[in-house]
């Protein structure tokens, strides 16, 4: 472990130059971390090592490389399990949060009856809306939405009214990818369990930033993506309580997920293979495990602390830009490292374009949350989102570019 790595685990989290671990951060002020994060060298090396030294399929061959690949792949399940306080057999590798939620909607949806209700919130990402919407249509179930308070928090009073005995599934983002709001998912899980509903947590935005313990959240299922926490694209996770996964029917069939195949029927493999049909994304899983280990060396608590400083700094600086309105809580408490905003005279797309020309990467549009933008009567927003490797200098660069927006669109 070099001195920089040792420093990473220390309390002097602000002193460390994390950017030197990320080859892609050389040429850009990257503030689009809610979309995807950059990849540290250790992740690229882990994937490269698999492809160059022991490239083989898992669970099949008896030769050395296959043994090594299988062991590494199984260990990746353990690394993820430990990251969220679960058991290895409760970790299913998927292509990402979207596939995880689709798997749930298809499998859990089989048991829905006409009149049953699914509860989500208005701030959900499309990946936690559309799968439920489609299964609800098919099963003649109702999709109900939790609404927001004036301070962009979930309205718990309304939630208590909406969650009823008809509710079978509640699926909520732990953190909004637009507002940055961190939702009280534990309290809502308790409400849901009282009426016998299943609880799904979309942790795509929260897992990279907040320490998650699934037992504490008391959720039945939880989904997140690898690429938003320094891992590669195309790998994600579905956690499910063992009891739940045992009772759940798979929705993807093929090799690897079976115990025995007869001409007219089949039986399923044990967890987690039962839900991992086909050759999995082996390199992706190993890259994800390397990413998680990298985050753990830094420490999730240090990541959270650093991001809190960045949010506080950014909120204060953004307030100095004329015509800029923050769409989300102005308070840095209970808020993740994503800040969406509008500008009085410039369309979000033009804001992002001008920043792009200053080599600052932000996102513009509805951020895959059209119902949220419609409910707030907004066509779109500009969004900057941070990760631990960002610095206050990055924020200053962005603020300078925002002043340029005002100069052009005065």
């Amino acid at each position, binding site marked *: 472990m070099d001195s920089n790595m040792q420093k990473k685990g220390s309390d002097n989290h602000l002193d460390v130059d994390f950017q030197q671990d990320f080859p892609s951060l050389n040429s850009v002020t990257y503030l689009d971390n809610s979309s995807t994060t950059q990849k540290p060298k250790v992740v690229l090396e882990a994937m490269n090592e698999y492809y160059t030294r022991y490239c083989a399929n898992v669970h099949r061959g008896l030769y050395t490389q296959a043994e090594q690949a299988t062991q590494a792949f199984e260990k990746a399940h353990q690394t993820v399990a430990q990251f969220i306080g679960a058991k290895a057999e409760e970790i299913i590798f998927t292509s990402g949060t979207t596939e995880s939620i689709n798997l749930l909607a298809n499998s859990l949806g089989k048991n829905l009856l006409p009149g049953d209700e699914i509860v989500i919130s208005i701030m959900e990402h499309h990946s936690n809306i559309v799968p439920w919407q489609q299964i609800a249509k098919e099963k003649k179930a109702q999709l109900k939405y939790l609404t927001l308070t004036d301070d962009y928090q979930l309205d718990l009073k309304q939630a208590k009214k909406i969650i009823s005995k008809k509710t079978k599934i509640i699926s909520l983002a732990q953190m909004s990818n637009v507002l940055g709001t961190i939702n009280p998912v534990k309290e809502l899980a308790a409400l849901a369990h009282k009426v016998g509903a299943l609880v799904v947590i979309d942790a795509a935005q929260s897992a990279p930033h907040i320490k998650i313990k699934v037992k504490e959240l008391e959720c039945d299922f939880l989904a997140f993506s690898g690429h938003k926490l320094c891992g590669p694209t195309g790998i994600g996770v579905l956690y499910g309580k063992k009891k739940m996964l045992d009772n759940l029917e798979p929705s993807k069939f093929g090799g690897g997920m079976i115990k025995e195949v007869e001409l007219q029927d089949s039986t399923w493999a044990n967890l987690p293979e039962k839900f991992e049909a086909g050759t999995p994304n082996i390199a992706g899983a190993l890259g994800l495990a390397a990413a998680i280990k990298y985050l753990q060396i830094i420490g999730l608590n240090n990541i959270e602390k650093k991001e809190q400083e960045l949010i506080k700094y950014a909120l204060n600086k953004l307030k100095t830009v004329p015509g800029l309105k923050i769409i989300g809580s102005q308070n840095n408490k209970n808020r993740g490292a994503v800040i969406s905003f509008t500008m009085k005279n*410039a*369309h*979000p*797309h*033009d804001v992002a*374009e*001008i920043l792009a*020309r200053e080599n600052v990467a932000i996102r*513009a*549009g*509805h951020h895959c949350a*059209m119902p949220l*933008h419609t409910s707030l009567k907004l*066509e*779109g927003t500009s969004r900057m989102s941070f990760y631990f490797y960002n610095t206050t200098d990055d924020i200053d660069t962005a603020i300078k570019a925002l002043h340029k927006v005002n100069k*052009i*669109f005065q």
Partner: protein
Amino acid sequence: MKTHKIPSPQTAEMGEDPLGERLGKPLTEEEELYKENILDHYRSPHNKGQLKKYTQTHSDLNPLCGDRITIYLQVSPNSPKILTDISFEGSGCAISQAAASLLTDNIKGKKVEEIRNLGPWDVFNLLGIRISHTRSKCALLSLKTIQHGLQGVK
């Protein structure tokens, strides 16, 4: 307001670049995206609002950025069909709004057949700026909507 000459349909294929090999080159002052001309059309778009009388209308949106547009077209009843009047309503970024303003100005009074043959570079030339791959969807929304609206004109 200065408008540019639209090149013939033969040179107006996507991928051709009648203004020279601009892609990949650094921006010159003239190629600045938000030229005064663009900003003028964005701030005070021409042909904005709903026509009192129209024969065709069509709406579309760009899901990427949420730009929405509705086009109203007045086409003459006799052959050859002429677009006698046009207007648009909608909201969006400077590029999509300026493109709609410039394009509606440019095609008013033209033959429907001629408008059907317009391609991406005709719009890019009207804008007179370099358009990135992502932003081309903003720039071309109005053309796409107009051509869709004219599909019913026999």
